């Protein structure tokens, strides 16, 4: 734990690399987002039926999809943690759950904003919406269980377990539009998407948005993991200071 003392010490190369990766990702995400904004608000055609509000589509969809990615990572990292017990697995699981929750929250918010003009209500108990809300609950519970556990160790195991079981809801969110055929539009991305679901230009901008949001996602994830690592180090130092 000598590296904490304040004076610059030699860093392991991979740590420096990750640090750099975070910087580059931040830059990349910033640039891509700017370009994406230009594409969405200037280049993309105005929707014939829905009008300008339809542009929120390019934000809503990538964000929703990437929250799924967050939860997928969380489940995988949870399995990894249960089997390997590496702290880094838990850091990945924790960080991806938090980023996933942020993204799902944003999906809900953009959805609500979109719903008001096109459906006339902020909220309705529609399957896609409800299952998304439930997804939010599950991962809020994921974060709560860490707090509730008697020991941090148990918190890690329990949350891993919740993350694994909770992932079951993700495919349900995805397929909900098909099973119930309600007012929420059907899939444009993923295994169930029709080939001609979108105009080519729209599809291309959507893919660009997806890449931009992915960069943002990656940056947030790495940043959060680094922060968790610092927190862990701090806790360890405190323990060492107290025990002797």
């Amino acid at each position, binding site marked *: 734990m000598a590296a904490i003392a304040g004076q610059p010490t030699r860093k392991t190369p991979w740590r420096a690399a990750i640090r750099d990766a975070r910087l580059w990702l931040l830059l990349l995400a910033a640039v891509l987002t700017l370009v994406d904004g230009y594409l969405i608000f200037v280049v993309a055609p105005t929707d014939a039926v829905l009008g300008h509000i339809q542009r929120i589509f390019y934000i809503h969809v990538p964000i929703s999809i990437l929250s799924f990615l967050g939860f997928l990572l969380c489940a995988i990292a949870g399995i990894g943690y*249960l089997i390997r017990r590496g702290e880094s697995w838990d850091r990945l699981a924790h960080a991806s759950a938090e980023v996933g929750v942020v993204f799902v929250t944003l999906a809900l918010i953009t959805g609500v904003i979109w719903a008001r003009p096109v459906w006339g209500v902020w909220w309705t108990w529609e*399957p896609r919406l409800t*299952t998304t809300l*439930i*997804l939010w*609950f*599950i991962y809020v*519970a994921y974060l*709560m*269980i860490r707090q*509730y*556990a*008697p*020991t941090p*160790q*148990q918190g890690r*195991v*329990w949350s*891993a*377990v*919740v993350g*694994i*079981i*909770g992932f*079951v*809801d993700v495919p*349900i969110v995805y397929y909900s539009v098909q*099973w119930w055929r309600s007012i929420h539009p059907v899939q444009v991305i993923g295994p169930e998407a029709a080939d001609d679901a979108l105009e080519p230009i729209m599809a291309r901008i959507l893919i660009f948005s997806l890449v931009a949001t992915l960069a943002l996602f990656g940056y947030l994830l790495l940043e959060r993991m680094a922060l968790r690592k610092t927190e862990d180090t701090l806790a360890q130092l405190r323990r060492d200071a107290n025990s002797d």
Partner: protein
Amino acid sequence: MELLRGALAIAWKDVRLELRSRDVITSALVFGLIVVVVFNFGLNRAPGSLAPVAPGLLWVAYAFIGVLAMNRAFTRELEQGGLDGLLLAPVSRDAVFLGKMLGSLIFMLVIEAILLPVFAVMLDLPTLSPTLGLVILLATVGFATVGTFFAAIAVQTRSREILLPVLFFPVIVPVIIAAVEASALVLQGGPMTGVWTRWLPLLVVFDALFLVICPWIFGFIFEG
């Protein structure tokens, strides 16, 4: 073999304890009756408004009863030693899980069986068919599986009573939805293709999924 032996021993012990005190079944029945009575007084104000809601009511009541039963099943274990007796035994964690799950499943099925005719009369459910029984069985397997799992976590915390529903409901909602939809179709008495082609398979898939995942990760949640 060893799995079955352990699971049956635990389930049988739970059944015996329950027969001795009858507290899970009693309190669940009381609660179920309260639900029905309250709904009858509270909801049956606009005549005819209850029929479309009935399947939902049925499952909401069952879900809450499930939470009660699961909670009890585990607090009983904690009485004199926090599950240690079970964890010491040379049976795998899966067996412990299956045993507790089987016990809860039996209680819930008994309670549901008792309440169903009551609900049928009071909520004016149109038809009771074997298909409904199948729906109830499948959904209850899902309840008991997920519920047992989360109850095992929740009892180890201070806020156990409130944490269980917080963990349990979001995960179980899909099962509830499928059960409500299927029950609605069955109770309407119309063509039941939707039941057989969509909802029952969905319930089976959920059950299978949970029955594979839950025992597997159950072993991890008892590490102090």
